[in-house]
């Protein structure tokens, strides 16, 4: 038997890719969970096909899952995978360009038939034509070996072939010295409940894959990634959509309010509805409305009635909600609007990520319409951002826009589960005193009282027409209108009072400051860290608050020679910074439905450094 070596690596990125029917997302998730249990820091990137159901074996149908695991901090799923498992030619075709030169390539040879090669657009067989010479190629008949391993279970052919992803998983476990226990337990507990036979077969496939790595002559090396230093606590993986849902749940508890979600399904936001609809036992009411307008309007009704009111959507849906957002603003009711950004304009690239709704969030309504805007930076951070959105909405009696994006929404990362009783409560005060009640009176945050139906003596009428200061009666007075426009603006401005000082990562002053927002956090942080490691005087500021901006931001910006703003759009935050601070911010754009790579950020910053 061949001697096998074990090599220690600091980090590795692995991508599983196959047809949409091949179960790559499940494979990726299993690998992720096992990796997390093994104590690595990690980040993942699931990549679904845009088409509903593209024909099997075609480029359009390729589904991928990338996982970056490390013994150090991990910020992104990794630019270029070190290992690519491709279950068919189309998966190879789509993903090979990303593979690191010299990377490991595990290919399911059974799928490399002439027909499949043609479907994937190959003129010749890459297994034979030498085009893969730059990689370490491991051709494995994954399908055949799986079928052999599970022959005695008695599944029909179609079901049997489906087990091949667990063979691949087993093989990957062997390669990275991961224990099988977690996946075995999952198969035996979760999968077995639905289909005992399939569970049995997958178990065998998993073990067979592992054994194949152990015994097959072609594999000479396996790898070990030591544990990372991770803050103690209880962890689980969450996607950004789960993070938002759980954050809202937590805010419900922290505020004591009843939750109401009014929404209409739209990719990639729908999962928030799916998640929240599961918490009926906690009192969450979800309302699947007839359209996005009814979604937000029902939430406005719930806010008026005293609920923790939420509506969720994505770009085109946000456009439809704009008129009603202004009603919420005029009514001065708390409301959280979650917008999961996707590729635009119009229907655009609905399954891809982008950061191009910032301007819409800030300005997309008639009249002077100041609404707080905040953004989440990672799947786990969606939890915190959702709580922050609720907190602002209630303290200032205002609609709040929370921006996430498709990358955060579907991506996942290990998340340290907080103890709710350690989080600050969200104070809520319902007005009950009829004496001197002024529907549009204000406290020192300029918030008006929340006086809900059912409270005796506070009967009052509100609406979308301009309101008289204090009384809230309809007023057509010009002076009052200007006063109210300014009060509404000032109310939002005062939210800056609770924004913590801007956190500058890296040099406190110096050459290039990289300013980002939202889901680009990981790539920017990793890119800047690399340059910091190389001794450059650069820094990174990542904005949670886009409106109002932090009070100290201008001062921070002016401490650097150059401000670089990488965005997955054509320069929206940079417009804002230029306007507000009159600095010649340089915009670095990518609008390809994909996140930044660390290397792209590093290269862009270097270019600016050179230009100084």
């Amino acid at each position, binding site marked *: 038997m061949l001697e096998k070596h074990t090599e220690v690596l600091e980090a590795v990125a692995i991508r599983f890719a196959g047809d949409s029917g091949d179960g790559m997302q499940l494979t990726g998730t299993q690998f992720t969970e096992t990796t997390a249990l093994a104590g690595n820091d990690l980040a993942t990137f699931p990549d679904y096909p845009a088409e509903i159901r593209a024909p099997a074996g075609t480029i359009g149908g390729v589904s991928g899952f990338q996982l970056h695991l490390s013994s150090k901090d991990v910020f992104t799923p990794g630019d270029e995978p070190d290992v690519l498992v491709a279950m068919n030619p189309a998966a190879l075709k789509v993903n090979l360009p990303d593979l690191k030169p010299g990377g490991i390539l595990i290919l399911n040879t059974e799928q490399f038939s002439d027909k499949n090669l043609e479907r994937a657009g190959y003129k010749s067989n890459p297994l034979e034509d030498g085009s893969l010479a730059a990689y370490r190629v491991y051709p494995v008949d994954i399908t055949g070996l799986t079928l052999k391993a599970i022959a005695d279970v008695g599944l029909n052919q179609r079901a049997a072939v489906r087990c091949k992803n667990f063979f691949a998983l087993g093989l990957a476990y062997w390669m990275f010295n991961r224990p099988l226990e977690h996946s075995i337990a999952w198969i035996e507990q979760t999968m077995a409940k639905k289909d005992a036979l399939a569970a049995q077969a997958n178990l065998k496939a998993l073990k067979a894959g592992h054994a194949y790595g152990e015994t097959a002559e072609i594999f000479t090396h396996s790898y070990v990634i030591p544990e990372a230093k991770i803050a103690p606590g209880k962890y*689980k993986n969450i996607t950004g959509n789960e993070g938002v849902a759980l954050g809202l749940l937590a805010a419900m508890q922290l505020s004591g309010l009843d939750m109401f979600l009014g929404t209409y399904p739209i990719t990639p936001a729908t999962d928030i509805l799916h998640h929240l609809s599961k918490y009926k036992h906690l009192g969450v009411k979800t309302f699947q409305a*007839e359209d996005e307008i009814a979604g937000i309007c029902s939430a406005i009704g719930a806010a008026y009635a005293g609920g923790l009111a939420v509506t969720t959507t994505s770009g085109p849906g946000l456009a439809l909600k704009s008129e009603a957002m202004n009603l919420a603003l005029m009514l001065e009711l708390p409301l959280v609007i979650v917008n999961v950004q996707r590729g635009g304009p119009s229907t655009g690239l609905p399954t891809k990520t982008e950061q191009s709704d910032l301007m819409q969030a800030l300005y997309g309504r008639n009249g002077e319409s100041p609404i707080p805007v905040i953004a989440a930076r990672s799947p786990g951070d969606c939890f915190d951002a959702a709580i922050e959105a609720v907190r602002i909405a209630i303290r200032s009696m205002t609609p709040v826009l929370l921006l996430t994006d498709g990358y955060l929404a579907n991506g996942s990362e290990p998340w340290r589960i*907080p103890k709710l009783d350690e989080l600050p409560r969200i104070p809520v005060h319902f007005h009950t005193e009829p004496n001197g009640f002024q529907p549009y009176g204000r406290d020192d945050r300029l918030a008006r009282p929340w006086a809900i*139906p059912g*409270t005796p003596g506070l009967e009052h009428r509100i609406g979308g027409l301009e309101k008289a200061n204090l009384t809230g009666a309809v007023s057509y007075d010009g002076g009052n209108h200007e006063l109210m426009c300014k009060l509404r603006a000032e109310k939002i401005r005062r939210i800056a009072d609770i924004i913590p000082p801007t956190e500058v990562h890296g040099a406190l002053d110096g050459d290039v400051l990289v300013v980002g927002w939202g889901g680009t956090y990981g790539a920017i942080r990793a890119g800047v860290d690399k340059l910091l490691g190389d001794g450059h005087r650069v820094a990174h500021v990542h904005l949670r608050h886009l409106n109002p901006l932090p009070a100290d931001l201008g001062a921070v910006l002016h401490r650097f020679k150059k401000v670089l703003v990488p965005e997955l759009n054509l320069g929206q935050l940079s417009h804002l910074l230029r306007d507000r601070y009159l600095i010649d911010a340089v915009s670095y754009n990518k609008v390809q439905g994909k996140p930044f790579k660390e290397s792209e950020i590093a290269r862009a910053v270097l270019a600016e450094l050179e230009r100084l």
Partner: protein
Amino acid sequence: MTASVYPTVPATDPSLLSKKDFQTEVDPRWCPGCGDYSILAQVQRILPELGIPKEQIVFISGIGCSSRFPYYMNTYGMHSIHGRAPAIASGVKTLRPGLSVWVVTGDGDALAIGGNHFIHALRRNMDLKILMFNNRIYGLTKGQYSPTSEQGKKTKSSPAGAPDYPFNPISVALSAEATFVARAADIDAKGLPAVLERAARHKGSAYIEIYQNCPIFNDGAHDYLTDRKTKAEHELRLEHGKPLRFGANGEKGIALDTRMQPVVVDVATYGEDRLLVHDEQNDSLAYFLSRLVHPAFPTPVGVFRCVERPSYEQLVEDQLTAARERKVASVQDALEAGETWTVA
């Protein structure tokens, strides 16, 4: 678990309420002679009789002359945006099923821009009382034809006559599965409060089409039905279980001809027992009645349909109760659910 953040003030005593408790200090801003005044008066008249504490009543409207209604009701109220009142009211009602939630809307507000929310609220059987003031015109924007204006109507926006064929709002409400559907005229001091009260007591969505006169932009649209002189000839008062009779002395009736089409018959010669009998629970009959249209037929007023079906917010409450019984778990449990691991 700490105490509820919600106010725990006791409800006021509804038996002490009178009409003037529902009047606000704001003077209504409708044109002189507008039918909206009489509707307001009738609503203010019946509310004290419902046994509902004033603070538990909410009026939500859209935009239009009719939609200014909440300003004149001394209850909770919202004058929202055009066409969206049913959606807003749905949120109020779903969150707080205990409130009595009313929607006031116009033919434009409910059937033009708001048509979709209107039919969806009805099909869900959301327990809302929807009062639609039908003056067959856009009043607030100063006189354009509406989805209930007659075809060929000349207005500012249709100088050559409206090419649109109108909706029959009762038909639309019925097809939207509304469980309570009725009609009354603004100045019908008997019929209007009667249907208002039945609507209020109905558990589920209740829709009332109120024929309303707009003396400025569409004067007299419903005169044939409200004018004392012509009323008897044109009004068909619906009564559950009673044959369909009308005319000054009930001398005329409605029957089916052999092609299952309505005919007006002379009761004496035709025989009362061969008349159609009103049945509030028969939805096809209700639809049939909605197709009796002036001038070929008398206009039915009263309750077209009234059936029981669980209301949306009740079903939601039931689901929550069932879920709570099935699963006892805290928010913390929810956070910790799923595959977890612990780093020491």
